[in-house]
């Protein structure tokens, strides 16, 4: 018996969230004396595939000729590869959210998304998941024999656990029921949902021309950039950067909010962050009630100082 993990690469490199998912599966496999079977879709070289064994994958199956955006086809592959598996693990990415529901129907398996707790008993799976836009945590139990879960990015650590592995490369080709005719890539180098540090700004920045310092601060920290809803609504920043209840929910280690008052809808998308820093001119801004650190001050004064201090530290 094995635990199946869907592994996802971006331009031939596995995502950090994929290693989190493999490590998550390894822990359950060790506890229940099972193997971890990783499934990779799309073009990727063997050295990258072998990295999966550093985190505990015993079997690595690579379908190099199938594209991951053929979610219908990918779901069929995962179903076929999971005959000896009663647990299929995904990281909660957009791609996974298009595949996991299909797999769950094919296997008559319960689907649990946004999982933030480990599985302690494979025979009787119950886990915690984020719900109500991070305003609540739901405990949920699987009633079916087989389960499909998607784990939240950044909720679990990546720990090396080298195992010997068996790599199989498959040449199957599959038709898709959608055609991809174009792609626009985000400008930022770091994926917002996977970033460990996020620098976010709101209307307090006064205009899109003032984002240079936000991007410079993000560069200093190796951070992704984000924004509040009003900023994306008026088009200062792309919608893909909007974090909050109707945008993305994120859970970085550090979230720095600059010129964002901290409305309940915004906090809902970010309050799973481990540490939050709020910088705002208004000492009554609600964000100061939710943050770990607060600075009352003008962003145009505080942010350059913060950049200087970080550069000093980076140089030491």
């Amino acid at each position, binding site marked *: 018996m094995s635990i199946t993990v869907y592994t996802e690469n*971006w331009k031939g490199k596995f995502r950090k969230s994929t290693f989190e998912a493999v490590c998550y599966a390894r822990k359950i496999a060790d506890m229940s004396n099972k193997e971890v079977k990783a499934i990779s879709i799309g073009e990727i070289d063997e050295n990258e595939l072998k990295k999966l064994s550093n985190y505990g994958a015993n079997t690595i199956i690579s379908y190099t000729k199938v594209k991951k955006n053929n979610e219908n086809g990918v779901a069929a592959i995962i179903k076929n590869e999971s005959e000896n598996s009663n647990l299929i693990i995904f990281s909660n990415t957009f791609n996974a959210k298009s595949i996991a529901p299909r797999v769950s129907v094919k296997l*008559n398996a*319960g689907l649990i998304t*946004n999982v933030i707790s480990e599985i302690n008993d494979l025979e009787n799976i119950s886990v915690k998941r984020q*719900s109500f836009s991070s305003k609540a*945590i739901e405990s949920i139990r699987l009633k079916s024999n087989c389960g499909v879960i998607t784990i939240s990015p950044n909720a679990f650590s990546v720990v090396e656990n080298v195992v010997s592995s068996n790599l199989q490369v498959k040449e199957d080709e599959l038709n898709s029921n959608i055609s991809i005719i174009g*792609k626009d890539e985000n400008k930022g180098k770091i994926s917002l949902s996977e970033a460990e540090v996020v620098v976010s700004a709101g209307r307090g920045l006064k205009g899109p021309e003032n984002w240079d310092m936000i991007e410079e601060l993000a560069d200093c920290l190796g951070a992704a950039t984000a924004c509040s809803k009003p900023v994306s609504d008026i088009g200062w920043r792309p*919608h893909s950067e909007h974090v909050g209840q109707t945008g993305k929910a994120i859970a970085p280690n550090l979230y720095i909010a600059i010129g964002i008052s901290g409305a309940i809808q915004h906090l809902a998308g970010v309050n799973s962050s481990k540490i939050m820093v*709020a910088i705002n001119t208004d000492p009554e801004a609600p964000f100061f009630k939710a943050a770990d650190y607060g600075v*009352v001050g003008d962003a145009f004064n505080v942010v350059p100082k913060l950049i200087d201090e970080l550069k000093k530290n980076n140089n030491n």
Partner: protein
Amino acid sequence: MNILVCISSVPDTTSKINFTENNTKFDKNGIQFVINPYDEFGLTKAIMLKEKFQANVSVITVGDASVEPVIRKALAIGADKAVRINMHPMDSFSTANEIANYVKQNNYDIIIAGKESSDYNSGAVPGIISEILDIPFVNACNGLSFEGEQVNLSREIDGGIEKIQTKTPLIIGGQKGLVEESELKIPNMRGIMTARTKPLEIIEATTTNHLTESIEFEKPSTKGECKMIDENNISELVNELYNVTKVI
């Protein structure tokens, strides 16, 4: 063109979230319910398609009688017909299965759902429907247009936007971008009056099969006091982040 919009009734985004009955049930007391924000983008898009192509727009929801004001609002915004499947939604699978069963008995060119509901956030219902009906599924969809039988779409992916073509019938999980926030339709008095006479069909659920079970809820642990740092002492903040909380 026949369009089905899936509507979920959710607490208003400003709601304080509480639970009752030993933290097993969501406390509806004092809560204002609204159309799920992601569904609202899809509903407005459907009304625009109705105006352009003389499409028929039906809305469907799964829930008890308490969700009816929310689907009446969808009728007031411009949908032609509403369907309520009379069942307390137990999980994504049972909800999706009921909607899929209804779709099998009726012909729709496109089913528009939200990419998730803002209460349970599972984001699973449209994907499960697509598999049951074996039709294309475009999730996190932020652009939709029709050219004859061909459908042009765009969707958010991890790292960008993808442009897609496919054919009807299909299902999407919609979000902002289908229409802009400023285009969202608000019911006017005439819409509210005519909504009273539009058909609202109630259908009994066909199954009680569900694959997961909610046990209880808890609220995230509350943060400690916010440590205030003087704007002229930013080195202290950097020191805290490097050496105390060690997040950078």
